[in-house]
């Protein structure tokens, strides 16, 4: 019988070792700390875009600790987990980090539409908010169904709608789009496919022809795509790419002599790593820019003073102020503001994900607050509610002049909610039905 005993001892030892590896340290238990999980990708095909975003996000958390001593005295702690933009790794990271810190994870930024889809239904049981600002599922605007998703500041349906409106204006009215051709060059994943529904809806309304040109992950093979563009000669090309796919698309546009002025990227296809590899060829390329364009503001001065000059910076000092860096900062800013907002209700102590959700649902980031925090010019005001998890979306257009992004003056795009609202409702209802979710009653929760 000793043999089974021996094995049992072995098994117990393995079990203990595992438990030791994965148990959260009890030292946190009493600390006055707010834990921020950070899902990032600093390696693989999407690293060129993942790195600046993660740097901006983490640097802002450092700044809040260094400058303000945390959020009203509650120190921020964080841990990064590498997802490599892969859904399964992202889910593992989510599981790993959701319970850390004294009160669990504050909120997740999955930074990938695929991971967002996968963690969305986990959030219902774990009660952790999922913030997808400028990405994620478009239908998750509906807070009654997607109780834990916050597509703050805009979804891909908003983005697609804004782009159609913008090119409509260029043509001299949406009616002029009739008979025109618009090609959508998209990343062949949930991210790239999201805008299709809206573009098709708009195509029905205005009578333009929509060409769908998927590009397979990771997006270095686009010769055939651009040959088709050369053949079909669309009037506009919308680019829904990420990572190396963006710069490749611009290079192929150069090689097929497609005018870059006619190319419009979504806000994830308009950062420095997307255009610089194409060199001179990228000149004239446009993209949506939302909330956080490139450049320096008051908050960047603080960042240099409190973080970088003390040698605490995550990235290189020169890279501060890049588009994705600023966007990472804005993402951290919104999350911190949500915690502050929730602290008003629940007290200045570490908060749980559920308490932070209240903050996210009652966000009131107005122009004065944006100015006070040094984000003037980098953010649009946001105000959310239990029903509306999105807070209002506005965006502009910026153009690459060969050296920097230049924001087009006077262009403020707002999506047409009359088209999008019914689509959101239909899609959210379908999700609720498939997942057998009972809707929240927001009126009751408020009362």
């Amino acid at each position, binding site marked *: 019988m000793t043999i089974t005993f021996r094995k049992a001892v072995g098994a117990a030892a393995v079990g203990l070792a595992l438990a030791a590896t994965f148990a959260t340290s009890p030292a946190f238990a009493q600390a006055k700390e707010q834990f921020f999980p950070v899902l990032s990708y*600093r*390696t*693989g*095909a999407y*690293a*060129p875009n993942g*790195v600046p975003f993660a740097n901006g996000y983490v640097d802002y958390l450092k700044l809040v600790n260094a400058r303000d001593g945390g959020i009203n005295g509650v120190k921020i702690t964080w841990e990064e987990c590498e997802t490599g933009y892969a859904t399964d790794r992202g889910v593992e990271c989510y599981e790993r980090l959701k319970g850390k810190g004294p009160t669990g994870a504050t909120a997740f930024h999955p930074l990938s539409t695929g991971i967002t889809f996968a963690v969305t239904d986990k959030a219902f049981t774990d009660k952790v908010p999922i913030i997808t600002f400028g990405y994620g599922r478009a239908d998750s605007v509906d807070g009654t169904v997607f109780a834990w998703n916050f597509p703050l500041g805009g979804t891909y349906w908003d983005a697609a709608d804004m782009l159609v409106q913008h090119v409509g204006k260029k043509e001299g009215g949406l009616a002029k789009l009739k008979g025109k051709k618009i090609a959508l060059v*998209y990343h*062949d994943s949930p991210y790239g*496919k999201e805008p*299709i529904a809206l573009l098709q809806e708009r195509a029905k309304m205005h009578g333009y022809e929509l060409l*769908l*040109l*998927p*590009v*397979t992950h*990771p*997006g*270095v*093979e686009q*010769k*055939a*795509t651009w*040959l*088709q563009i*050369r*053949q079909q000669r669309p009037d506009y090309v919308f680019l829904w790419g990420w*990572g*190396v796919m963006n*710069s*490749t698309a611009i*290079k192929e546009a*150069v*090689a*097929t*002599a497609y005018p870059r002025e006619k190319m419009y990227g979504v806000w994830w296809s308009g950062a420095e*790593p997307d255009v*610089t*590899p194409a*060199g001179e*060829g990228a000149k004239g390329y446009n993209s949506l820019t939302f909330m956080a364009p490139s450049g320096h503001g008051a908050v960047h001065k603080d960042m240099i003073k409190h973080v970088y000059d003390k040698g605490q910076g995550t990235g290189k000092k020169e890279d501060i102020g890049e588009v994705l860096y600023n966007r990472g900062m804005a993402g951290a800013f919104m999350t911190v503001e949500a915690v502050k907002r929730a602290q008003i209700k629940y007290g200045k102590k570490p908060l749980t994900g559920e308490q932070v959700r209240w903050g996210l649902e009652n966000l009131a980031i107005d122009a004065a607050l944006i100015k006070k925090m040094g984000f003037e010019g980098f953010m649009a005001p946001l105000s959310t509610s239990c029903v509306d998890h999105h807070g209002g979306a506005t965006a502009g257009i910026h153009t690459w002049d060969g050296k920097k992004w230049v924001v087009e003056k006077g262009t403020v795009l707002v999506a047409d909610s009359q088209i999008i609202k019914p689509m959101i409702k239909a899609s959210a209802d379908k999700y609720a039905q498939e997942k057998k979710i009972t809707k929240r009653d927001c009126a009751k929760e408020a009362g």
Partner: protein
Amino acid sequence: MIRQNGPFLALCAVLLVGLILPLATGATAVGFYVEVLLGGLMAGVLYSLVALGFALIFKASGVFNFAQGAMVLFAALAVARLAESMPLWAAIVISIAIMIVLAWLIERLVLRPLVNQEAIALFMATLGVTFFIDGLGQTIWGSDIYAIELGIPKEPVMVLQGLFQGGILVNKEDFVAAVVAAALVVGLALFFQKTPTGRALRAVADDHQAAQSIGIPLNRMWVIVWSVAGIVALVAGVIWGSKLGVQFSLSQVALKALPVVILGGFTSVPGAIIGGLIIGVGEKMAEVFLGPVLVRAFDLAGGGIENWFAFMLALLFLLVRPQGLFGEKHIDRV
């Protein structure tokens, strides 16, 4: 002869008809058709270069080297990053040295201990090497997108406008790449045919034991052939990198080289070249001309058939002609 090769000839005929069909039906302008053809050939040249590395290693050591793509990435990263602080030629020379060291290490640490193992074990080992090189490359050289500047203009030129409606867009870069690839193949052919080392390599490829018994040092031959494959990878990496930028994704081009070696025959150098061209042209033609037809017919969500077209083509070839276009007749058939 005809009877034996009947299915193969039939397949070739079908492919030829498919190639001409878009033109014959008048569905497209001649100028555009030629552009697609050129685009396909260009992509094919790059596939060929990667496939060449595969074929060389398989011929000499019987290893199905999955790490070829990772080697392309590693070499390209080395050139791109070194060229930031020195002239391009120096960067290339140093990178060649690095690739030779890498080949020596692989032979020493991976191949030699695994000698006489089954082919599948060796294949898996090269998968392990792939992971290692991918990680190593990003650790040393970084994971951003880097550019290799060969100094060739990227703007296309319009030619033959008088002959075809709309003219033909061509890139100088593509022609340089084609010339380099051709030069490389000629160089390799000379190396294999004329130099003593090349002859020894061919002997090793024919029969390991016989070669060893007449005093050819097997281990050194392997180092040489892996170094040559590394240099081929470097050329492929530099050309591809100057077109599209050097980034992690480059290592995935290795996958496209698999159908190429099937088509051309695992052990054939000209097969790798011609197979690459066929796959390149075939998949671009399929995507541009067949794709939209399929999308309309089945209401698909976009085309993208080039992802599997090459593999399906290779599969069909395998069924009618398992040795590939130029492979050795003797093949492990069921």
